[in-house]
């Protein structure tokens, strides 16, 4: 499995994502600059966290016009895996690859903590190594993670199992509709989530619960590729 970790001006979790990938699935992973126009050789594209373009105007609003986003669209259309983390999630919603929008946290404050998530759908390409409804600890660190969709879209997401992660109900850190922390597209190959699985890959960092997200992706990819 070959992985691209995109780098926009202002990305700052790019190296963390790369480290986590090397550490967890030990596959070929590399940084790819935002001006790249061809991602066809990658099986997984990670849109990492950070503050692309300073998060000025709205988080993710400017990055979605980077040249590389067209290549991301194409990769998504070809069924490649795309994982947007935090700012990456914001970029994917701004780009229309995922439904909804991320507003400022209800508290109006940036919030960094280890949050508890419920795996709402354990049958996606990104979550098969979790058990459904399992509670996992994954850090969050964002000021604009307050997920919004209108009621109608929310119902549709629910029915189609597109809500993948929720904050445990008593601990919604940002006011997200329905406690939504991560959603997947209809086809099941594009996941966006506010929490940072790449920060939960060792005991020293306080949690290892992010490991299985990367392991799930590798397993899914293996399932669709003949092994040599």
């Amino acid at each position, binding site marked *: 499995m070959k992985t691209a970790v995109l780098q926009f*001006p*202002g990305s*700052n*979790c790019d*190296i*963390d994502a790369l*480290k*986590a990938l090397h550490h967890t699935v030990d596959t070929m992973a590399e940084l790819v600059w935002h001006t790249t126009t061809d991602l066809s050789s990658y099986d997984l594209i990670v849109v990492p*966290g*950070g*503050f692309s*373009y*300073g*998060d*000025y105007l709205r988080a993710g609003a400017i990055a979605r016009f980077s040249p590389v986003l067209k290549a991301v669209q194409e990769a998504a259309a070809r069924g490649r895996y795309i994982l947007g983390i935090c700012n990456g999630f914001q970029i994917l919603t701004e780009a229309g690859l995922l439904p909804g929008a991320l507003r400022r946290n209800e*508290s109006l*404050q*940036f*919030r*960094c*903590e280890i949050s508890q998530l419920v795996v709402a759908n354990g049958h996606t390409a990104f979550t098969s190594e979790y058990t459904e409804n399992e509670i996992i600890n994954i*850090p969050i*660190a964002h*000021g604009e993670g307050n997920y919004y969709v209108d009621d109608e879209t929310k119902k549709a997401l629910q029915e189609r199992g597109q809500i993948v992660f929720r904050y445990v109900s008593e601990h919604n850190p940002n006011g997200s509709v329905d406690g939504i922390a991560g959603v997947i597209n209809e086809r099941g190959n594009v996941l966006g989530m506010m929490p*940072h699985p*790449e*920060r939960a*890959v060792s005991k*020293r*960092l*306080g949690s290892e619960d992010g490991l299985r997200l990367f392991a799930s992706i590798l397993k899914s990819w293996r399932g669709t590729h003949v092994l040599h």
Partner: protein
Amino acid sequence: MSYTEPTAGEIKEQRIYRTFGVTDEEFARVTELLGRLPNYVEIGVFSVMWSEHCSYKSSRRVLRRFPTSGPQVLQGPGENAGIVDIGDGQAVVFKIESHNHPTAIEPYQGAATGVGGIIRDIFTMGARPVALLNSLRFGPLDDAHNRYLFSHSVAGIGGYGNCIGIPTVGGEVYFDDSYTHNPLVNAMCVGIIEQAKIARGSASGVGNPVLVVGAKTGRDGIHGATFASAQDPHAKERSAVQVGDPFMEKLLLEACLELIETGKVVGIQDMGAAGLTSSSAEMASRAGSGLTLDVSRVPCRETGMSPYEIMLSESQERMLVVMQKGEEAIAFSIFEKWGLEATVIGQVTDDGMLRIVEGGKVAGEMPVTALVDEAPVLERPSAVPAYLSQLLPAPTSLPDGPSHEDALMHLLAKPTIASKEWVYDQYDSMVRTETFVRPGSDAAIVGVPGTNKALGMVTDGNGRYVYLDPYAGGAWAVAEAARNLVCSGARPLAVTDCLNYGNPEKPEIFYQFERSADGISEACLTFGTPVISGNVSLYNESLGQDIYPTPVIGMIGLMDDAGMITPSSFTNPGHILYVLGDIAAPLQDGLGGSEYLAEFLPEGVLAYKLPHLDLGTEKAVQDACYQLIQQGVVNAAHDVSDGGLLVALAESAIQGNIGVRVEVPQEVRDEALAALLFGESPSRIVIEVASDRSADVERVAQQLGIPCARLGVVTDELRFSVMANGSKVVDMAIGDLRSAWQGAIASWMN
């Protein structure tokens, strides 16, 4: 271009220089050094170079007393930041800096640009910034304006650090009336560098090109450095506040590190206070060279800027770079990749002059030595403040004092003692995924990438202590910083200091400054932690009222094995609790300087003597703790500081979500019990050990000649219970303690 500026004659006749804070004597000296009258640009340049902020004219003599060398020191004070060896060819680079005055008038941007400035100091050395800390002082939270200053400062610190992607891993916050009109925001940055790649702020090599890189120059903050030292608060406001652009700085950081990596950089320095003026003069001074700068080539954000404005602008996110001749193109291409400008504005000369030209015309010409070496050094008068001789021995209890349970609850809910979660949850403390101990413990621990080593880091200081005893208070700050590192498992390495004081022209204030610096010096010698960088902020006064003398110590420690990290929270039921050091010291010291007095006898807290600090004892206690941790004996360690013994025990129990049952190990008169439970005598550490390791504790304590007392046990019952003289004096649910402690600041802020 057209701008009308006063002529040299008018500057002299109308004494215009006075509006820049230049005295008559200083003006005469400038005239003498130039051999003629200065023009407007020149007097502007002199005024900032000779300002307190840039020249350290009041403090320079005092700072010379600090110990600054040691086998570990690779770079002491004098550069953008100090550097300390951590082995394997690597080094840690760090510095702390104040941004008090801008914060008072625009807290978000003031605090944010403070963070931005200190980060630049680190990456100019070629180091990758890996952590931020901050030290904050505000007036009490029952005042809406204090809440505004506090919340916006915290948001600004987070806003900058979060965006640029450097974790904010620690700090401290105190609330006291003393800071109501003059809040303190000190920011510290820590970086890691390969020793072979250290860059310096030196402009050498005749003919080498000088570049401005990064943001465009605007009219921001002209004379910020001058007005930071003004006495009149309205004058402070006159300097425009800068708006920070952390996104720009992130790009600048990456571009500069990439540029330095090429090995083609001769010298590099950030443009902080006094912008182009101080960066160019200091770089030339370090190299003993001269510079010719064409201000018409400086990229400006606004139109019609005069040489004067360009030289004095404090626009953020800019650097001055000297490249090897002929290698400019490397800078252009790297900066272009990052979407930034890099512009050649001049070159290095050998005539020792800072020459400012505008196109073909010379706008100003000054010897670099006159600007830097000839800057005034003042011998400020110093006088022992009268209050010091009137301090009384501190009481061990209060006549109508609270019950011990009430006292504990109140202290835990005091914003100065309460959990700082409300603050640090607004900071990304985990980005870079090397933060092994996040805010909330005694010291933060950050891994050294690619090794099994880690760095411990803290900031510490207590203005009230320093007020009550400048010498001991200064030493205390160093002792406490070292103690916090040791409790976490790290070995103290070196110090950076931020010296925040009132008006140095008052002899009593100058005394506080001088004496506390002496205390810091002695403690640094004791702990083997030289001062490698620092910053001075004077004139922290408002309406004639000076802040407490508030030196803040930033300290870095090293862990050779990150596996030795020790938490401050209790871990295992059945484990034994010990106090290393003299548990009964407060029976002599009383409640002097304590939060207990501040809470229950506020009008008397400045009337009593500070507890006694003996640096030898302190060092022995720390050595004992460190050795026991290295021997794998200690499961948790937490020092006794603000709030005293019970607060320390409660913090560790709350954070471990575990109970404790302790018994005061000696008979104590009832009237003295408050002091034992809440007194703030130094040199005491609570440790948790497995029951079969008790003998190790007693052996090490004996070897080092320190007292150690067995205090009680950790329990799985979620209660906090304290026995003294055979009866229960405190018996409370951990949950109740937690809600008092955890929610206190939030309850004011939300």
